[in-house]
């Protein structure tokens, strides 16, 4: 009985830490609709600042808690600075751009933290007066865990008081429930948003600081906690503080007991719970459905344009250069360009559903990496020839996308994105843990092209033709009824349904097509690399793809190609330099502030003849 109680209490203390981060994230999302990827970074900074503050301050319980409070305030101020200097400029930009901006902040903070705090993992100081353990029916329970258990309810009560009993809190709740109404009330939104960012970041910092004696501080905390915090927020219902509390309790207990059975995969278990909850309750346990579809509606202002003459000429020149490339390039450049092309196809497939389709996927690597694995496993286990493997990879991924998509198209906006992330994470876990079949962390090695394509020039042409063909096929699809039907569902679900379009079914099919082409990209990619590792299916991979799409711009059909070339080129240029994340993040921030429509979007807007020119693009033909 004792160990059981201790396990239960440990779960409560896990829940406490989860709640602090998640509450801040939920609060910020509720008011500003910013999905703050940098929230985990604030948590990490909180832990580090607390460490240095506590070791600098005099010893003793008072100063210990004082140091923790100082850390929370410092992080709160950091959040305020980010809000005022960056986010405030781009609240009007598409939601996805804010995501990219906060992701850039995450990258920048990662390197700044490395620079300021050092690479070493820090062991947290013991809390004075709470450094022992108590006996519970024969089992030991650290005193500090008990203290942690008390913190979450205290913060919950404090937040409840703030939100329900103060004028400021009433405004925050009004903003969460109805932004338009708030604007109509004439409230100073800027001050409100900044205040909420301070509070949210303060809570993240507090969360990082209070877990210091338990978990210490290290540079991987940010990504680890952000994934968990998102799960809690989404399970609880975005914007709902009590929901976050409830979800933190459930997930905290689950991980605490789950660790007894499947030790390595607590995060995967959380994602699994999230998938189940979202399927049963699409808006989380205590969340409310979005009143208005706000996600990508701004996209609807961007008509689909046929290629202008200029673009056709550019495309032809590009194709000619690519075909002539082996004449004057070395093998390193050939491989690089080939990989850019495959990556561009993966990006185009994500763009297909994200831009014209309005469905943002945070887990597209499931299909890209999945295609790579499918091809590799066929070759490895049953000696499939390359040509057949290149057919089987997209087929398998179309089937996988049909399964995953069936659940995902029931949701929209951020919820849909989070569900794709959950499924991708589950796929990734399967690949990691089913070592006997997939090779686990060691990956699958020795996957080489058929002999006729073994020559690097021939393989280069193969890669260019498959990738380029895939990109053009997806592009063409956008101009067919299939693509139009998908776009109709994005533009107006209401109208689409009223003219007899089965909205979910169209979205489902589109999702499968995107998965299929991503699988094709992954299939050819594995033959270029010769091997595949679980990284190709992981969250960072998904974000590589998403960031490239955003980098190119979701308003423009050539965006994915430009974006992936820019992304891989950049990565290749700077990944050998120290602090490349800092550079990459700064570039993203600059891009977001200067080119809120992405690179390709910027140029196509800039070089369109005049603002009222949209008609000219779509000459009637028939």
């Amino acid at each position, binding site marked *: 009985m004792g160990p059981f109680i201790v396990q239960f209490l440990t779960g409560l203390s896990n829940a406490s830490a989860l709640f602090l981060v998640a509450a801040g994230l939920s609060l910020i999302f509720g008011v500003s609709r910013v999905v703050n990827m940098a929230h985990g970074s604030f948590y990490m900074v909180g832990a580090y600042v607390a460490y240095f503050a506590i070791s600098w301050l005099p010893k003793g319980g008072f100063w210990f808690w004082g140091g923790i409070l100082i850390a929370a305030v410092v992080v709160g101020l950091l959040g305020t600075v980010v809000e005022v200097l960056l986010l405030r400029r781009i609240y009007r930009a598409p939601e996805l751009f804010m995501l990219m901006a906060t992701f850039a902040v995450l990258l920048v903070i990662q390197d700044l933290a490395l620079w300021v705090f050092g690479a070493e993992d820090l062991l947290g100081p013991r809390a004075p007066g709470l450094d022992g353990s108590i006996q519970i029916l024969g089992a030991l329970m650290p005193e500090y865990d008990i203290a942690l258990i008390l913190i979450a309810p205290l913060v919950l009560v404090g937040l409840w008081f703030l939100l329900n009993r103060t004028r400021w809190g009433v405004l925050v709740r009004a903003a969460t429930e109805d932004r338009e109404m708030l604007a109509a009330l004439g409230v100073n939104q800027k001050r409100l948003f900044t205040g909420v960012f301070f509070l949210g970041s303060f809570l993240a910092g507090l969360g990082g600081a209070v877990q210091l004696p338990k978990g210490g501080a290290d540079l991987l905390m940010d990504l680890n906690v952000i994934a968990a915090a998102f799960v809690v927020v989404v399970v609880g219902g975005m914007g709902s503080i009590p929901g976050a509390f409830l979800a933190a309790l459930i997930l905290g207990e689950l991980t605490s007991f789950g660790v007894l059975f499947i030790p390595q995969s607590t995060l995967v278990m959380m994602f699994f719970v999230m998938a189940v909850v979202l399927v049963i309750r699409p808006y989380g346990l205590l969340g409310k459905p979005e009143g208005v579809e706000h996600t990508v509606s701004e996209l609807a202002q961007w*008509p689909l344009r046929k290629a202008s003459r200029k673009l056709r000429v550019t495309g032809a020149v590009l194709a000619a250069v690519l075909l002539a490339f082996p004449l004057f390039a070395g093998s390193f450049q050939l491989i690089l360009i080939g990989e850019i092309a495959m990556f561009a196809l993966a990006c185009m497939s994500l763009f297909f559903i994200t831009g014209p389709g309005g469905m943002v996927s945070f887990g597209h690597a499931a299909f890209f990496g999945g295609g790579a694995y499918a091809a590799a496993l066929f070759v490895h286990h049953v000696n499939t020839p390359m040509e057949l493997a290149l057919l089987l990879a997209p087929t398998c991924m179309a089937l996988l996308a049909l399964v995953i998509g069936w659940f995902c198209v029931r949701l929209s906006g951020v919820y849909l994105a989070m569900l794709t992330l959950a499924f991708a994470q589950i796929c990734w876990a399967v690949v990691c843990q089913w070592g006997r079949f997939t090779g686990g962390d060691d990956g699958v090695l020795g996957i080489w092209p058929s002999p006729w394509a073994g020559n690097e020039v021939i393989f280069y042409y193969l890669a260019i033709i498959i990738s380029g063909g895939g990109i053009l096929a997806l592009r*063409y699809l956008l101009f067919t*009824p299939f693509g139009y039907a998908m*776009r*109709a569902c994005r*533009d107006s679900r209401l109208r689409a*349904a*009223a003219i007899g*379009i089965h909205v979910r079914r169209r979205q489902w099919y589109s999702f499968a097509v995107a998965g299929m082409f991503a699988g094709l990209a992954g299939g050819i990619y594995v033959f270029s690399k010769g091997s595949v590792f679980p990284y190709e299916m992981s969250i960072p991979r998904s974000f590589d793809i998403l960031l490239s799409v955003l980098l190119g711009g979701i308003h423009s059909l050539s965006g994915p190609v430009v974006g992936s070339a820019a992304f891989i080129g950049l990565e290749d240029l700077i990944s050998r330099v120290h602090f490349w994340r800092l550079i990459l993040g700064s570039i993203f921030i600059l891009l977001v502030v200067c080119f809120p429509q992405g690179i390709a979007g910027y140029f196509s807007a800039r070089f369109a003849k005049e603002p009222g020119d949209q008609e000219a693009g779509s000459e009637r033909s028939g």
Partner: protein
Amino acid sequence: MTKLLQVDGLYKSFGGVEAVKGVSFDLEEGELLAMIGPNGAGKSTCFNVINGQLTPDRGSVKILGQDTTGMKPHNICALGVGRTFQVTATFPSMTVLENVQMVFLSARGRLSTVHRTVSRLFVEQAMDLLRVVGVESQWARPCGILAYGDLKRVELAMALANRPRLLLMDEPTAGMGIKERLTLMKLIGKIASERAIGVLFTEHDMDVVFAHADRIIVLNHGVLIAQGSPAEVRDNHEVRRIYLGSYAR
């Protein structure tokens, strides 16, 4: 002969608000039925229940004798129901022509076509419809930048494109000047009688209603308080009371 539309004892509430309380009425082929009532009377809610966007709490809807209660909008559309919305809903990123083409593509089951581009499908048919509603000159402009009155006409074209038997038009003339209102209603009346379509519409301008409706039903606070010919409704005491005598002289 079966009625085109039969609504029987409809109830619908949102949380605490009872928007529609026991509304029953029916509609014949070729008939122009006006639903009137003050703002918040429950008119749009009735429309949304009839076209399947909302499920009623109680009551039933029959279209051409078939019980459609709880059916999804896309299935109800397939029975021959066209719909326009109080706040216009079109595809803003598509041109006027493409908006109408979409309806043809959907009605003819061509949405999965991948071997031809939209620019070659149903162009003439869609242009013809645009001519009927009088926005053919705008065909190449995206709906996102269209004037409100033109959007209402595009919606009408879209509602007509699948050859509906029943048209549901929620405030088809909102935001138009009085002359345009009258011409548009006249046009709707003409189309309805030519094609034997039954039309259920709401309208705030009583002059328009009394000039064009064959029959009128009156909603107030979710309750159907009167129905009958324009003359009967005009003389109804309760209707006069609600409209404070402003329209019923």
